[in-house]
C-alpha cells in the first residue's frame, strides 16, 4: 500500500475518519516508502516499532470516536527537536550518542494530537546551512532532478531532510525550523509548502537552540491546508519558553475560504535584485496577476533596509550561536575528545569542540565570538541590532499603510547541484536566504508555496509575508494563491 503515503494530511484524515484505511496501514506505507528511499538520506534515526505502536493506539482512538486533529497522521521530525529516548543530534557529531531524557513541547503536542512519529530527519549541522551539506549524516538528495540530467541536487537547508521526505512522499508532513529561511528555502527547492510562524507562536522548549531571537519552528507540508492543520497542533503558549506568546491559537483551517477580495498585497521594490533569473521575475509577476484576479489590491511598497538584512543577520545569528553553543564542551552530554597525558580542562574543551563541530559551525561560532568580543561589540553587534530595529520598522510602515501581506520570490534561484558551492566563498551560500532573512529579523510569519517549474524542470516558490500573529489571514492568502497556481507536479521517481 505504498500509495497511501502520497496522501495529504487533509485527505488522510478523511480516509481515517471514514475507515477507508487504518493508521497502521497508512504508517506502514510510509515506512515502506522510507525503506525504499534510503538513497535520499532523509531519515537518519528510524523508529518503526514506535511508529506502528502509536499508529495502533491512534486507530483505537479513532474507533472510539475521539480523534484529535492529527490523529493517525504519520510525520517526520527534524533532528533538531529533542525526542525522549530517541537520538537527537542536531545533525552534529558533537551530539553523537545523545538521547534526550525529555520531549520538546512541539513534539509532545503533536503526539498528544495523535500524530505518529516516523523518525528523525536529516538537517544541516545545528541548522546552519542552506544546502544540507553540513550534516554529520551526509548530504540529503533532492528527489527532483533537472530534465535529462542525473546530477544530484540539494534539497536546500537547513530543513533539507524534512523537505525532501515530504516531497518524496515518505511522510505526510514534517516539522522544520527556520532561523533565516530554513523552512521556506528548502520548501521552495522541493516544491512543497513551508510555513514559518510569528516568532513566539510555537514553543522553542526542547528544540536545540541556534539563534534564540530568530529561531521558530513550523510545519512543512504538501498543501496550505495541511500547513494550517499542522500549525494548530504545534502552536500554543508554553510556560517553559519565556518568549512563547500567551495568546489563543485559532483553528487556522476555518480561515481558508480563498476569499481575498479587497485585500491589499504589497510588492516590495527592493526584492527586485540584480541578476535575478528572468524565470523568477516572471513567476513573481504571474503571482501578482493571480492575486489581482482573485480580487486583491496590489500596491508597490518600499522596504528600504532590505539590503542590510543579510549582513545584520550574519552578525546577530552567529553572536547568539556562539553563546548558545558554548554548552557543548564535552562535560554534560555528547562527544568528549580523547585526551593526551597532561591535558587539562581547557584542552578538553578545545579538542572536543574542534572534533565535534563541523567547519561551518566553527566558522559561525568564531564570527560570533569576534563580534561580541571587547572593543567590537558596539561596532558590530549593537549596530546590527539597531539595523534590525530599522528592518522591522520597514515592515511596520508597510502594514500601517493598510498592506495585509507581502508577495516576494522565496529564493533567488532553483535548487543547485550538491557540491557546487563547496569551494566558493561562504557569502555566496548565505545569499540563498536573501528573501527570507528579513522576515526572521522582523519576527513575522512567512510562507513559501510552490509556484511553478523552471526551464530545467525544477520547482520554484513564492513567499507571502504576513502581519504578526495573523497566520490565519496569511494562510488564507496563500490558499487563494495556491488554488490559482494549481501546482501539481511531483518529482519523477528515480530512487
Amino acid at each position: 500500500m505504498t500509495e497511501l503515503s502520497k496522501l495529504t494530511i487533509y485527505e488522510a484524515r478523511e480516509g481515517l475518519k471514514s475507515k477507508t484505511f487504518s493508521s497502521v496501514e497508512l504508517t506502514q506505507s510510509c515506512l515502506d516508502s522510507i525503506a525504499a528511499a534510503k538513497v535520499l538520506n532523509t531519515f537518519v534515526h528510524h523508529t518503526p516499532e514506535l511508529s506502528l505502536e502509536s499508529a495502533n493506539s491512534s486507530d483505537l482512538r479513532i474507533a472510539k470516536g475521539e480523534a484529535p486533529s492529527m490523529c493517525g497522521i504519520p510525520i517526520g521530525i527534524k533532528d533538531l527537536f529533542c525526542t525522549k529516548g530517541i537520538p537527537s543530534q542536531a545533525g552534529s557529531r558533537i551530539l553523537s550518542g545523545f538521547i534526550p531524557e525529555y520531549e520538546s513541547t512541539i513534539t509532545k503536542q503533536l503526539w498528544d494530537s495523535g500524530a505518529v512519529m516516523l523518525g528523525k530527519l536529516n538537517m544541516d549541522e545545528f541548522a546552519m546551512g542552506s544546502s544540507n551539506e553540513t550534516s554529520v549524516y551526509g548530504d540529503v538528495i533532492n528527489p527532483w532532478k533537472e530534465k535529462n540530467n542525473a546530477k544530484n541536487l540539494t534539497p536546500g537547508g537547513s530543513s533539507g531532510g524534512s523537505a525532501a521526505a515530504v516531497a518524496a512522499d515518505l511522510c505526510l508532513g514534517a516539522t522544520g525550523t527556520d532561523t533565516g529561511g530554513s523552512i521556506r528555502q528548502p520548501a521552495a527547492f522541493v516544491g512543497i509548502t513551508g510555513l514559518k510562524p510569528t516568532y513566539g507562536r510555537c514553543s522553542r522548549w526542547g528544540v536545540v537552540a541556534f539563534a534564540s531571537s530568530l529561531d521558530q519552528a513550523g510545519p512543512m507540508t504538501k498543501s496550505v491546508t495541511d500547513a494550517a492543520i499542522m500549525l494548530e497542533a504545534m502552536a500554543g503558549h508554553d510556560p517553559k519558553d519565556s518568549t512563547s506568546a500567551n495568546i489563543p491559537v485559532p483553528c487556522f483551517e476555518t480561515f481558508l475560504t480563498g476569499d481575498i477580495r479587497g485585500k491589499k498585497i504589497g510588492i516590495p521594490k527592493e526584492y527586485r535584485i540584480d541578476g535575478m533569473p528572468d524565470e523568477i521575475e516572471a513567476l513573481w509577476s504571474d503571482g501578482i496577476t493571480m492575486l489581482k484576479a482573485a480580487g486583491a489590491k496590489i500596491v508597490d511598497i518600499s522596504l528600504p533596509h532590505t539590503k542590510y538584512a543579510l549582513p545584520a543577520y550574519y552578525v546577530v545569528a552567529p553572536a547568539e550561536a556562539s553563546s548558545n553553543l558554548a554548552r557543548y564542551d564535552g562535560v554534560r552530554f555528547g562527544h568528549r575528545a580523547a585526551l593526551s597525558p597532561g591535558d587539562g580542562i581547557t584542552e578538553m574543551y578545545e579538542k572536543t569542540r574542534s572534533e565535534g563541530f563541523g567547519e561551518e559551525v566553527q566558522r559561525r561560532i568564531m564570527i560570533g565570538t569576534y563580534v561580541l568580543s571587547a572593543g567590537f561589540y558596539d561596532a558590530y553587534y549593537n549596530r546590527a541590532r539597531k539595523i534590525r530595529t530599522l528592518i522591522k520598522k520597514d515592515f511596520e510602515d508597510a502594514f500601517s499603510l493598510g498592506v495585509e501581506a507581502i508577495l516576494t520570490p522565496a529564493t533567488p534561484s532553483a535548487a543547485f547541484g550538491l557540491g557546487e558551492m563547496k569551494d566558493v566563498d561562504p557569502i555566496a551560500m548565505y545569499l540563498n536566504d536573501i528573501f527570507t532573512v528579513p522576515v526572521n529579523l522582523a519576527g513575522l510569519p512567512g510562507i513559501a508555496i510552490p509556484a511553478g517549474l523552471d526551464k530545467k524542470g525544477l520547482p520554484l516558490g513564492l513567499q507571502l509575508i504576513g502581519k504578526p500573529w495573523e497566520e490565519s489571514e496569511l494562510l488564507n492568502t496563500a490558499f487563494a494563491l495556491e488554488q490559482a497556481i494549481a501546482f501539481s507536479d511531483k518529482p519523477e521517481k528515480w530512487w
Partner: protein
Amino acid sequence: MSIDVTTARRVAKLARIAVDEEGLPKLAKELSGILSFMEQLNEVDVDNVEPMTSVTPMELKRRVDEVTDGGQASAILANAPNTKEGFFAVPKVIE
C-alpha cells in the same frame, strides 16, 4: 576590518576551538571575508535608533519563586561522557 593570523588565533582561543597553526591563515581569510561583507552596515545612519532587544514586544514573564522541579540527578547525568559518584567528572582543574 581584516583579520590577521594573530587575531584568528585569539578568536579560536576565546571560542575554545582548537585550530592548528596551518589552519589559521585560511580561517583568518574566511573571517575577514565575512567581516568585510558586514562592513555594509556602516552605510546606515543608526543615530537615535534603539538596538532591538525583543522582536515581539513582551514583558518578561514572572512566576512565584518556588521549587518546581528537581530530584532527577540520574536523568541529568544519563548523557554525560564521564560521571563519578553522582557528579560530572572532568580532568583535574585545580593543582
